[in-house]
């Protein structure tokens, strides 16, 4: 009898490799030609393991569970010091700077001040920087173009860019050498449409996709489906408009829910399950908040 051979799959396409940051602080994400964690079973490589960014706000955080702030609680008033601590004490591979204060409903911080904050954080942290506005389609272009200019040539990851505001932000990213996050609201057809438009301005090597990443109990299964389907379409069916790496930006989503807020232990599991789910679905870059969960996920990725 012939020897049994386990079946394996080979796919015709691969995820685009995106570099964020420059010089010795650069990280790479994407580049795989298999589905997440299937390199053991199938024919292919997963050259860049998923990376994790820790969340930093540009203002004193509110509504955060104490445990999330434990290692940084003495420095949260200063985003640069906060980011530096994330890297030095926790080993963050990237910083996700959330410019929440720029929202007109928060402090309506000016583009100049926001850009100054981004610059200070970038100089202090020594790792690649992701800079996010609040999704306000009028304010974000003003903020993000200013940030792009202030850190020209540093290859930041700027986002979110939406179908309403992608042009000014993508043009600024092109001019100043940055990458962008293309965000569509849990809809694979709208994601593709935005990608097609964005690719007229930027090459795919400068684009990361954000289909939104809802938390456990609040739409996680929808998020999972879209992440998984994006990888299927890109890697298995070679759709070149859907081959960019995926960012799973769920920490804010997890910790604003009632259950994690009321019970920190439960919250830890909440973020953990959410993180693992998006990794399984194919996320290349995670945004996380709780230091303990961060450590567990980092170990899991290292061992995978």
């Amino acid at each position, binding site marked *: 009898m012939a020897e049994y051979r386990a079946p394996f799959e080979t796919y015709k396409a691969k995820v685009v490799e995106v570099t964020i940051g420059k010089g010795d602080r650069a990280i790479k994400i994407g580049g795989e030609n298999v589905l997440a964690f299937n390199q053991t079973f199938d024919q292919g490589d997963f050259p860049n393991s998923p990376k994790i960014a820790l969340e930093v706000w540009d203002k004193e955080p509110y509504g955060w569970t104490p445990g999330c702030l434990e290692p940084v609680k003495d420095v949260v008033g200063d985003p640069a010091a906060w980011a530096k601590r994330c890297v030095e004490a926790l080993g963050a591979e990237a910083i996700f700077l959330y410019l929440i204060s720029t929202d007109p409903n928060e402090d309506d911080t000016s583009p100049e001040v926001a850009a100054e904050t981004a610059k200070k954080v970038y100089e202090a942290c020594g790792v690649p920087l992701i800079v996010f506005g609040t999704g306000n389609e009028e304010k974000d272009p003003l903020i993000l173009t200013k940030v792009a200019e202030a850190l020209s040539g540093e290859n930041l990851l700027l986002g979110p860019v939406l179908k309403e505001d992608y042009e000014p932000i993508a043009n600024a990213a092109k001019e100043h050498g940055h990458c962008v996050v293309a965000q569509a609201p849990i809809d694979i*057809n709208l994601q593709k449409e935005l990608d097609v438009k964005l690719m007229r301005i930027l090459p795919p090597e400068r684009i990361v996709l954000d289909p939104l990443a809802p938390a456990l109990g609040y739409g996680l299964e929808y998020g999972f489906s879209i992440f998984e389907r994006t990888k299927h379409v890109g890697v298995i069916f070679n759709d070149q408009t*859907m081959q960019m790496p995926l960012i799973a930006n769920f920490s804010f989503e997890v910790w604003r829910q009632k259950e994690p807020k009321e019970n920190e232990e439960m919250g830890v599991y909440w973020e953990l399950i959410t993180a693992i789910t998006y990794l399984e679905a194919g996320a290349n870059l995670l945004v996380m908040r709780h230091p303990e969960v961060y450590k567990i996920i980092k170990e899991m990725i290292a061992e995978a």
Partner: protein
Amino acid sequence: MVIIGENIHILSKKVSEALSNKDAKVIQEMAKAQAEAGVDYIDLNIGPARKNPDIMAWLVETVQEVVDLPLSLDSTNPQAVEAGLKVAKWPPLINSASGRTDSKEQMLPLATKYKCDVVISVLNDQGIPADAEARAESIMDTVTYANELGIENERIWVDPIIMPVSVDQKAVMEAMEFTKMLQDLLPGVKSTVGLSNVSNGTPKELRGILNRTYLVMLQKCGLYSAIADAFDQELMDLVKGRAPEIVELIHKVMDGEDIDADSLPPKERDYVKTAKVLMGESLYSHTWLEL
């Protein structure tokens, strides 16, 4: 391909105003224009017509005065359909019944009573079936029920229910798959679709090519008829055999031939790209023609 002109539809502002004012002239102009465009039936869609089911009788009489085509009485309200049946000069098409309990009990018996044809959709009490097999299962049940009421297969027009490609690309393929199976499942039945639904949600200027391409594809799968825009001249040309080159090109895409769309003239290129999206070869987005 039998074309049922869809243009007398309650969702059209012009039609809904004409109905509430009983403005016969507007309706008659529309009916005549559709007849001139070459439709085989005229659909009279009055929606559920809860308040005034008798409007169907007025509508049927109004249209019959000027046009000799058979009519399709389109309402979910059996009272409205019966009002039209009572005054129709020629046996019309009942559009439509389904596998839902209320429809089986109230709409289907009308086809027996008035000895006319009836559209039966795959819808049932559980909703719209997910794939071709589930559609088959649902329609078998309903057609068996109809047969027991004395409605033979030849009088039944099966509607596979078309979903918008922007909502559910897979369902677009499942409906084709189901249409292919239909003659084996239920020999002798006819079939029809509400074609324009495939492009619901797609930007207006792009709807026509989706409708036209899909109809050519469904025709190849054996579709007998469609409720469609009578004034889309290109659509009429395609399904009535007056544009064989385009039809052949779409068939090649369906047969899996490797066609380089970009090497073709613009019109042919667009049809090939559209057929590929409808075959599920590439993920749908509103920008499909630009890729």
